[in-house]
Each structure stands twice: as C-alpha cells, then as structure tokens.
C-alpha cells in the first residue's frame, strides 16, 4: 500500500480539535538548517536524515521531525519568551531504508507554561485524543520521568565524573548496566601514571594543578584543539582523586533498586517514597510533583492503573527533562509507537538561549491510519 501523501480526514479533524483547544496551527519550512537536529539529537540521527547543501555549502536537511522547526520559528517570532501553544500536521522525512521516507506527522508543542504538572496532564490528555479518533480507545500507555533519575543521582554523594557518566548512560540504555558494573568494580590500576597520581593524591589542589600545568609546558606540549591546559590538568587530577575507587556497593544497589521500580504511577510513587526513606535521601519535592501530575491525570479521567510507568523508561534523546510517554497499539499491529512525547525544558535554551519550559508530542499518522485497515 503506498503511503498516503495527503493527511486523511481524521487527521484534519484532530488538528481542528487541537486548534479549538487553543493550539495555533503552524507550518514550518520543509527545508531546515541541519545543525540544530545534529546538535540536539546527536550523530545517530544523521544516518536517517536527508542532507543537502546550498551553494554556500551550508548544511540543510529535509525536516526529520517538527518539534525543532516549530521551536526555532517560535524563537524567531515576536512571541519568543511568552507562553505559546502550537499544533502541526505535515510530512517529515527519514531514511528508513526500504520503507517510505515521507511520513505524515501531527503534534503539539506547549512553550513557557510554568504550571508543569497541569501542562503535562493536558499534553497527555491531548495525546490520547489522537488514538481515540482512530478508534483506539485504550492504547497501551508507557510512561517514565527522566527527571526522577537525574534527581536521584543529584541526591547521591557522587564524584562529578560519575554523575555525568550515569546521566549520559541513562539516556543511552545500552551502556548503563555495563557502566554500573564497571564503576562498581572500580577503574582498576592505571599503572603508567600511577607514580604521578600517587604523588599528587594528597597535595593541595592548587599546587597539584600548577604542577601538572608546568609538567605539560616542560614537555613542550602545547594545547591544540578546544581543551585548555587547565581543563586537562583538572581532569587528570580528578582521575587521581578517583584513583581505583569503586562505586560503593550500597549506592549501586540503590540505583538498581530505583531502576527496577515499575507499575502504575501511584504504586511507583509509593515505591519511590519507600526507597528514599530507606536510603535517607531527600526526593520529596520531586515526588510531590510526580503525585501532583498523577492526580491531575486522574482528574482528567485517565485510569491510572492502566498506565505502565517505569523509572527506567526513557526515550533515548537527552533533551528530555521530565515526563516521557509513548502510546502503543495493545494488539501490536503498528510498527512502533503511535504517539510519543514528553517534557524538554532544556530544548529552547539550547536552541536560542531562552530558558523556557516545553512539553509536547508527535503522532505517527500513517501508523494510526493503518490500524483500521490491518484489523
């Protein structure tokens, strides 16, 4: 079946409903600068992007999603900095090998709302409207909250090197278990530099820093590339302080226990409260916000017991900062998620130095449309 090139009537009706709910319909350009996509999503997305360059060899692409274009247009508009709500419906382009490269996507973006829990709940409710319009009344709802893991790591007394490593790993699930293992075993001896590191281990930081800096200049090593001698010396010394130390066993157990929390959102919240109490760490503000969102979702008529919440659930992109969710076909007919979204409070700051909260989702129109025909 060739992919429909025009959105079907249900998609148009859905967008009309979003407009009615106060989301202004926008139509960003198809051809976009490639830089923001590569910067925010990383190199992995490059293989799926259609890249072109103009005569001045600026890198352009056919938009692989609409969140970034909508955000860029917003930042360039007179509305930038003020709360704004947008919706969209149009094609995105991804190199998926044999499958069609042109995909119809709809979605909403909500920028600048500070009532986080209410904005999250509204967004999820609007996402559920999409599946409902295609006849899927009870989609499989998978949910997580990236902010919870970040909050946990922050509350633990970990070396900065380990903190940034674990946060990075969380966004790339493949390496997290492996890294926990490694950190728990310790980095092992670093025989080549053991002498220097041992000599510096107990000296005062400023003197040690000066020593390493001098060492580099004595060796006639000048800096090339973007890292300064000071930065290199700092990390060298950080490695010295960490030495062969290992992640404490109880910290590892705590992280693993945290990541194993799964169930419906209220149950997950009480498991996390118990975990915080047992470990003597303060997660209360974070968990209060979590429960506030749950309450607002319930108020909107969502049956929370049907939501599959997991602390380990993330969407693999590191610009998400809070709630993340995906809606799936419970019968497994679709080739992936039908709707996916979440909170990305860091996005606007990264794109345009405007620190504003943001939340939204994208809808795979063809996947929804195919549900009926494949039933």
């Amino acid at each position, binding site marked *: 079946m060739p992919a429909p090139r025009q959105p079907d009537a249900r998609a148009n009706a859905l967008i009309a409903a979003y407009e009615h709910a106060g989301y202004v319909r926008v139509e960003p350009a198809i051809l976009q600068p490639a830089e923001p996509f590569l910067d925010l999503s990383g190199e992995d997305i490059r293989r799926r992007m259609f890249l072109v360059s103009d005569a001045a060899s600026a890198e352009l692409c056919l938009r692989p999603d609409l969140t970034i274009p909508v955000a860029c247009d917003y930042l360039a508009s007179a509305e930038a900095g003020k709360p704004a709500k947008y919706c969209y419906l149009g094609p995105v382009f991804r190199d998926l090998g044999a499958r069609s490269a042109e995909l119809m996507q709809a979605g909403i973006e909500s920028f600048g709302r500070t009532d986080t829990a209410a904005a999250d709940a509204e967004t999820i409710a609007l996402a559920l409207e999409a599946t409902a319009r295609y006849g899927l009344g009870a989609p499989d709802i998978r949910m997580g909250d990236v902010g919870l893991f970040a909050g946990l790591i922050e509350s633990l007394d970990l070396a900065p090197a380990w903190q940034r490593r674990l946060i990075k790993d969380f*966004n790339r699930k493949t390496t997290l278990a492996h890294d926990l293992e490694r950190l728990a075993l310790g980095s092992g001896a670093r025989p080549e530099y053991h002498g220097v590191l041992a000599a510096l281990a107990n000296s005062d930081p400023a003197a040690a820093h000066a020593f390493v800096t001098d060492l580099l200049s004595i060796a006639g090593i000048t800096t090339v590339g973007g890292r300064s001698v000071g930065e290199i010396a700092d990390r060298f010394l950080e490695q010295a302080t960490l030495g062969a130390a290992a992640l404490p066993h109880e910290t590892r157990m705590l992280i693993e226990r945290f990541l194993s929390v799964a169930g419906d959102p209220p149950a997950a919240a009480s498991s996390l409260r118990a975990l915080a109490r047992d470990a003597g760490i303060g997660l209360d503000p974070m968990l209060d916000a979590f429960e506030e969102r749950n309450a607002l979702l319930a108020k909107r008529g969502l049956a929370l017991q049907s939501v599959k919440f997991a602390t380990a659930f993330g969407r693999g992109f590191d610009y998400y900062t809070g709630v993340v969710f995906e809606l799936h076909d419970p019968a497994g007919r679709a080739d992936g998620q039908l709707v996916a979204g979440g909170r990305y409070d860091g996005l606007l700051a990264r794109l345009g130095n405007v620190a504003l909260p943001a939340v939204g989702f994208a809808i795979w129109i063809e996947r929804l449309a195919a549900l009926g025909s494949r039933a």
Partner: protein
Amino acid sequence: MSALVIAVPAKGRLQENADAFFARAGLKLVQPRGAREYRGSIEGYDGIEVAYLSAAEITQQLGQGAVHLGITGEDLVREMIPDADVKVVLIEGLGFGHANVVVAVPQAWIDVRNMADLDDVATAFRHKRDRRMRVATKYVNLTRDFFAGHGVADYRIVESSGATEGAPAAGTAELIVDITSTGATLAANGLKVIEDGTILRSQANLVAARGATWSAKVRATARIVLDRIAAHLRAREFREVRTRFAGCDDKLMAAARQRFGVATPFGGPTSSGMLTLHCPPREIHALASFLRDHGAQAVVIADIDYVFTAENALFARLEAALNR
C-alpha cells in the same frame, strides 16, 4: 555488460601498485592511448574491460554493481557502501595500500588514554561549553558506528575532505578520525592515537560486486583472471626449496610442516630422494639448516612465479558469494 569489467585506480601510488600486482600475476593492463584513456584492456584477453577510476568511484560502482571486480581499500568499502557485506565480497587482501583508520587526539590530552576516557571527556566538554566536541573526519559512517559501539554520544562530526590532521590545530575540531600508515603525520601535528582507538586495519582488496550482472561468460572470464591472481598470490607467500637426501621420511616431513609451515606440492620424496617443498620466506634459513642437519648435502632455494593448484580458492570465494 557482456565483458568482465575490472575497475582499477586511475592515479597515484595505488595505481602503480595495482598495475604491478596485475603484471606479476601475468595480466598486463593496457591503456590504448596512454594515461588519458579511461578504458583499457588486458593484453591477450578478450572479454575484459578495464575501467580506470578514482578509489572512491571504484567503491561506489562496486556498491551499485556497475563493475564486476575492483581494487580499492577496505576503509572505503566499509565507509561508503551501506550493508557492505551484502553488496560486495572482499575476495582477497592484496598486500599493499596498508593503512589504519584511527581515533587521534591532541598529545596534550594526557588524561585521555582510551575510548572510555574520551567518552567521559566528551560528556564533560558538552556540560562545560554547551556544545559538542567536534571530530573531523572523512570517515563519517565508520566513526559513527565505532563511537556508538563505545557508547560515546556527545560529539559532532565535522566532515573533512583533506588535511584532516590539521583540524585540531586550526581550531575546527577537537580530535580526528583519519587514516595513518606510520603515525608520523599525526605526531607532526601534535596528535596521538588512543589505545583502543584503531577502527579498522585496512589494505587494498580485490572486491567483487554481488549486484553486477554475472553471466556465464563473465563468470568464465573471472575464473581465468582469478586463477592467475590466486597462482601469483600463492607463489608470493612461498619460496621453492629443492633438495635430495636419503634420510628423508614421513616423520621428518611432519616436523618440517609443523616447525616451518612448509607445504609439499608434490607429496613426499621421489624414489631417488628428490624433494620439493614450499616454504614461507621468513623460515627458509631455518629450514635449510634443519634439512642439512638431517643429512641433505645441498638445498636449493628459488623464487617462484606461480603456483596453479587444482582448486581455485579465489573463484570459489566469488562463486560462494554470488550463490548466497
């Protein structure tokens, strides 16, 4: 495409090496009107067309099945052809054009010894500067796959088409992924290869395109060409050792095989005690001593031009790939 089309490099060291390689295999490439002609043939063979192309074009055309066979570096095959193992088959490494694709960082980065360090530095760099560390390279795909395999996420690729090693000094990238044979150019630019940062050990390869039209006639021609090349390659790996002595027995032969890696193309000694062995070049002196210790009076060692064997290993490899 009724002729067997072989793509060979059109210029530079790779062309000289490829030319010499074919010549040693008894296949003389002829360019009818000198170096400006981009189509040639092989002296004495009908049904073969030689296409002179750049290494990048050869790789591309192999990927598309526009030529049957080609000589190109494995680095380009892995970089330029998506699903390389489906589209082409690397029939044999040719022993020239050796180079490694490596991750190289400034020597001043004394805190970076391996990919795990690099991963950590990349993440810290992004936290500190709110931008990703830049990697200059022309090997975009190799870099991406290798970095992904090591969990490195916080970087950006800056495509570079030449003088990649100068990028860190020029301030256009923090580190590079590039090809190196001795490491001298990297060192001259204040760069070092990190410990587990060798992405690929590459050399020139004879490559076949699975997507080309392999008619029975083309296959027959390929069989002859590959037979020649196989005979040459095998000859290159050995020296011929001839000797005669009475004390040669099976036990001695087994010892020679095991200690020196010798092959016995014609089996054991003849009734008059004549023995022919094929021995790897690095073992010839040891073997000569060994044979004399066991009673040989004279040992004659000579270069060999060809070893034609009943089986044609290269063609067998091609056929297996085409029938896959």
